[in-house]
């Protein structure tokens, strides 16, 4: 029984995508090799020769094994990046975050049917309610950037998870830095679910 309604933000999708890619690769590996024609009937005359059928036409738009389907959540995560990070007790989008959000805005511009929820997160080195408000500011900062880059505000909702939903359990500075983030979660409109 699942007692908890949240998905761990991001990790479920990533894990799912990785599993799908592995499954695709192993399926290829397990496929028996095509029968190799062996010239076991030297007596057969060339007149009886029937040319082999042309190779079956595959779907030309098929992604490379492991590659995301365009317009999918996985595509968004891989090609744009779904998370931007913040400095301690700050909610200003950093330069590295702007690069991610520029790509998010481009991607969302290509798929106008997609709606997103920005989830603000804070690290554990603060108290609960202040960090809840701080993470709310981070979510709003991400939303503001995307709106400023042409994405309709109506496509973007925001929520704060405060320090309640850290990305990692680690407590070193690197882990804490990861836990100070704004996560862009696609809620509707992605292809392939």
């Amino acid at each position: 029984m699942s007692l908890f309604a949240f998905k761990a933000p991001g990790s479920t999708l990533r894990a799912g995508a990785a599993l799908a890619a592995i499954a695709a690769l192993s399926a290829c590996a397990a496929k028996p090799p095509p029968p190799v024609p062996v010239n076991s009937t030297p007596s057969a005359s060339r007149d009886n020769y029937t040319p082999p059928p042309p190779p079956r036409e595959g779907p030309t738009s098929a992604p490379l094994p492991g590659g995301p389907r365009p317009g999918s959540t996985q595509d968004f995560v891989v090609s744009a990046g779904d998370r931007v990070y913040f400095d301690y007790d700050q909610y200003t989008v950093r330069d590295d975050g702007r690069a991610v959000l520029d790509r998010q805005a481009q991607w969302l511009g290509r798929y106008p049917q997609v709606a997103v929820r920005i989830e603000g997160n804070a690290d554990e080195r603060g108290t609960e309610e202040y960090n809840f408000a701080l993470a709310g500011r981070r979510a709003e900062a991400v939303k503001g950037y995307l709106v400023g880059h042409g994405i309709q505000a109506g496509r973007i909702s925001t929520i704060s998870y405060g320090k309640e939903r850290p990305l990692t359990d680690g407590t070193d500075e690197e882990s804490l830095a990861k836990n100070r983030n704004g996560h862009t979660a696609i809620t509707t409109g992605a292809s392939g679910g």
Partner: protein
Amino acid sequence: MSPYAILALILPLVFAAGLGVAVPARAAVEVDVNKGVIAPLPIAIPAMAGADARASAIGVDVSKVIAADLERSGYFRPLDPASFIQQGLDVEVQPKFADWRTINAQALVNGKATVEPDGRLRVDFRLWDTFGEKQLLGLQFTSTGEDWRRVAHKISDAVYKALTGQDGYFDTRVVFVATNGSHRARVKRLGIMDQDGANPSYLTEGAYLVLSPRFSPNGRQVTYTALRQDSARIYLLDLETNRQEALGSFSGMVFAPRFSPDGNRVAFSVDKGGNTDIYVMDLHSRATTRLTSEPSIDTSPSFSPDGRQLVFNSDRGGAPQLYIMGADGSGAHRISFGQGRYTAPVWSPKGDQIAFVRQNGGEFHIGVMAPDGSNERILTSAYLDESPAWAPNGRVLIFARETGPGSQPHLWTVDVSGQNARPAPYTLPATDPTWSPILK
């Protein structure tokens, strides 16, 4: 257990021999709670006598609960029953004071449990000053049989008050957030227990995260924040019916709710567009008033006991600090000026102090200061100390502590003097405690 069964009778117990004065005179033996260092008072609490086997068993348990309550306060040192010289005390007979002085028991609590024909429990008890050779208290408590622990807590409260001069806090309950799982995948449920850890149970099932519960002044309701995947809202939960209702309808995230001292209003924060402000709702009319309008984080409101002011947390000065404003939002001014970051203020029920979290030098501290910002004292220090809440007597604080990186949070208590910091009697991971008033 019916949580709010009323103790039917609390009667002064008149001593048959005629020496007893039920009204506590100023005790000759007493604990000075304002001394620099607490020297716990040696006290003897022999098993209460019982009229029959069942009553005797209850009497033994009642005495154990009293001893544990008083010991945990830090002001008393219950003596080992193996050292007792006088045995078989009769509540109607004056004890042999010399026998108790010999083992250095400065106070003695004895009594008798009786199970009435209708199943109700009656406990007669007396508190004695063994050196002054006089009775300090003689009381009779009656309750339903299942509420025997509450009778014990009522006796603890009476003894504590007679000997410290302060109201007790033992017949109370604590609501908290029971946590389960790693930080990353945490389940958080509202839990409730007696203040001594007995009778724990869950109030919510864990389908959503719960934050910052607060008792209503009458102890019958709890307000808290429910955090779901796409919303943060505040609720009123009725502890008798277990029914709850959402409070208000806001476009933003709503959190940090607390009752006013008269129970008629709830103050809380709303985050709209990244700006968090404090609002107050009248629970009868459901009218909402906005109290702050700065472009800063304004949260963690807490009413003064007279309901006329609020202390709150704001970063309007650049970093989180404590501010006080009128209950109408007027006259906001800063009261914290030390180094570091101040958050999570809670006004003492006595009104004289404000507890808070101060983050400084890589550590978290629980501290207290006067409402004018003077006399700041730091009481605790740890990797993470937060969510302080007052016992109803304004003498003890309960809070959540993580002892080191990655450790689970647990509830702790500390005397407002900074002494007697110890884990609360609930051993599972928990945060966000709130202390009920004395139960009726």
